[in-house]
């Protein structure tokens, strides 16, 4: 097993894996839509970290395209957050209740 440290690929990938799993956990367990959004951001973040780590440790020479992919992930996350929060805002405005939990419980 590769040793833990800044110069081993495995340590970055393990951190990214744990971030991704935490995102899955948040999405699967949160009842509030904002909690689900937080989980989504964690998963996006894990993906960007993986891209960058693989680009840095590419066989031969470091490859900046990993960073480019990570930037695209960040942009996608920003667009997703904007749209999701607009939807949340619309739900709050129309249901006359600021609590999304209450909105959900009224529905069922």
């Amino acid at each position, binding site marked *: 097993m590769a040793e833990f440290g800044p110069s081993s690929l495995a340590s970055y990938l393990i951190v990214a894996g*744990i971030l991704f799993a935490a995102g899955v956990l948040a999405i699967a367990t949160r009842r509030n839509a904002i909690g689900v959004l937080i989980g989504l951001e964690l998963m996006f973040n894990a993906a960007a970290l993986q891209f960058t780590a693989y680009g840095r440790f590419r066989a031969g020479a470091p490859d900046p395209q990993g960073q480019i992919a990570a930037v695209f992930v960040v942009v996608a996350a920003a667009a997703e957050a904007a749209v999701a929060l607009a939807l949340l805002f619309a739900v709050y405005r129309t249901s006359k209740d600021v609590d999304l939990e209450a909105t959900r419980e009224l529905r069922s």
Partner: protein
Amino acid sequence: MIETLLFAGCALCAIAGALGAALVKNLFHAALLLGLALVGTAGLYLFLEAQWLACVQVVVYVGGILVLILFATLFSADILGAVQRAPWSVRMAGWLGAVLAGGVAWRLVQVVLAEARHLDRTRSAPGVADPLTTSGGAAAGNVLLSSWFVPFLATGLLLTVALVAAVATVQRFRRPANGGSEAIRG
């Protein structure tokens, strides 16, 4: 040695922040812990010689998205700790989610270790190539404006469409109307 300690600190920030954001009951605290995870990841980017990406991470994620999420938590009634009673079915779903996430984490770590063992044999030592031309902000900018130029423009278009859509969504549901929430349910 000091490098390893700093790296461990960043990794610990990222992991602790992520687990806390997933597990803490208080939504406001969860959003703050998400910020900790994002800052820890930015530190990891510094170790990957992606200083520019670390700046982007702090400015866009922590400065933009996290502030948006913190703002959105203020809509929630129970931000300051009044924890809601979860019914039995939801708690069961929570345990199922924990098992699922544990399985995902276990499998990812297995795959990653096998992969890294393979890659460690083939990659060159870090820092061999000239960092100014093969990694870092200058190289990333060159690649972004040459072979990734069209996706870069498409990204700008995506952001514009997303922001216009966000504004349009809010405008459309601005006035409470009968059955207005029906449209959003799907």
